[in-house]
């Protein structure tokens, strides 16, 4: 049940518990217990909402920043990653294989705010060797959800 449960709520965390139990073919109490266990184990880390900010009047700018850093003895990348992820405007930090080390995503109110963050805070960190900032112009798909168009049922209405 665990895999199927996770697959469902990854798509729709607001699904009603009773309905969840029905479609999984188990009792509601089992779903409640399993969810609690998953939370305790840190497998479920949160229940967020996907928002397409583009469609609101609220200004938001997001960027991806490639960061090259010097790993520290005994700490590897963990220390520097922590220094970066503590900034609230940073929405994610990944350690990456390949041409650079950390991929940082950032959300701000304006281009200026983001470039300010990069030049004042990120680049000035001791172990940061270089940064490359990419502003996001349009989100087509996010978290497995296509944002640019809605599903349309184009099938014939009745078929054998």
């Amino acid at each position, binding site marked *: 049940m665990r895999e*199927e449960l996770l697959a*469902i709520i990854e798509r729709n965390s607001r699904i009603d518990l009773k309905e969840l139990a029905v479609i999984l073919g188990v009792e509601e109490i089992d779903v409640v217990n399993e969810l609690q266990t998953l939370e305790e184990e840190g497998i479920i880390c949160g229940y967020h909402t996907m928002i397409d900010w583009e469609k609101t009047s609220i200004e938001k700018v997001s960027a991806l920043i490639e960061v090259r850093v010097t790993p520290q003895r005994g700490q590897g990348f963990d220390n520097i990653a922590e220094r970066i992820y503590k900034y609230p405007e940073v929405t994610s930090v990944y350690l990456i294989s390949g041409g650079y080390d950390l991929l940082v995503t950032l959300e701000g109110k304006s281009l200026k705010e983001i470039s300010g963050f990069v030049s004042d805070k990120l680049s000035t960190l001791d172990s940061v060797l270089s940064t490359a900032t990419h502003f996001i112009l349009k989100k087509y798909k996010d978290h497995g959800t296509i944002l640019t168009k809605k*599903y349309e049922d184009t099938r014939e*209405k*009745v078929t*054998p």
Partner: protein
Amino acid sequence: MKDMLSKQAVGLKPSGIRKFFDIVSEMDDAISLGVGEPDFDTPWHIRDEGIYSLEKGRTFYTSNSGLIQLRQEICNYIKRKQGVAYDPQHEVLITVGGSEAIDIGLRAVINPGDEVLIPQPSFVSYEPCAIMAGGVPVIIELKEENEFRLTAKELEDAITEKTKILILPFPNNPTGAIMERKDLEEIAEVIRKHDILVMSDEIYAELTYKEKHVSIIEMEGMQERTILINGFSKAYAMTGWRLGYACGPREILQQMVKLHQFAIMCAPTTSQYAAVEALRNGDDDVREMCMAYNQRRRYLMNAFREMKLSCFEPFGAFYVFPCIKEFGMTSEEFAERFLAEEKVAVVPGTAFGDCGEGYLRISYAYSLDNLKLAIGKLSDFVSRLRGEK
């Protein structure tokens, strides 16, 4: 011109689905639960392979039997799933959907007057195809008390000296019934005893929700007397690609290839390239879609329990087949009124044979949100009907 038309063609009953389709098409805002195809798009990697084949200019006929690499993949697939080996050179034919395989399979084996056993309720094509092949359809009426499975006794009772072939349509459209291993063992025994053929239409094989699908070809002595039909439409959500296949004894396949060659030449080339990709890398897609169908199936069964609508629990395909006998209306009356009053389309059971009277086919090839909306309306409708009594 006098006698312009073929009497046999004219004599065929038009599909009951068609009639209902015409009514529904006139309503713009109807919600439909009447569709016999997946709601998923064909997985992108499969579509991409089709597009790629076009880019590469693979726009010519393939061999009559179909691309050899596709036939090989089909053999690998059947070996993997059923543990039965077929020779890709002589025992596999790629067809235009499972439907073509039904048609030419019957035409390859039927002589005038041969009886074709057709369990119903079932897919709409068997009976007309049997007639056009010169056969005599003999209907076996499946019963809800047997969960719409075919029993050995029902089969035995229908067999005569003229019986040539049994059509075995499981997992079943429209009932969602499946045949489990023990059921098939009993059927196989009767088939062997009377020395008849089987056409096993397993187009919904990937969509079962109990034990894994079992095929009649796994039973002793059955591979050599079975035309196995399957395809890509339901498992890989590829209905529009029109691609199916038949496997069977070399002698029968030889005749089928001949009919196919004269009528069709070969199945669509683009679809064949896409299907190779489906068989090579499509297992995860099938698993995910199957899981989604099962969730919807459970949702519907629970909804029927809550509205106290009688429905046996189906374990295959993507249909449920609830019983509406309590309302004292025919299936058609029920479906028409439901459409008129609630704007929801379901298919009357009678579209799949007379013995579908008293039942409705409800498809769950729809998103849960869509099902919820429609089932809410069904619940209202059912309460209203009960109030009228």
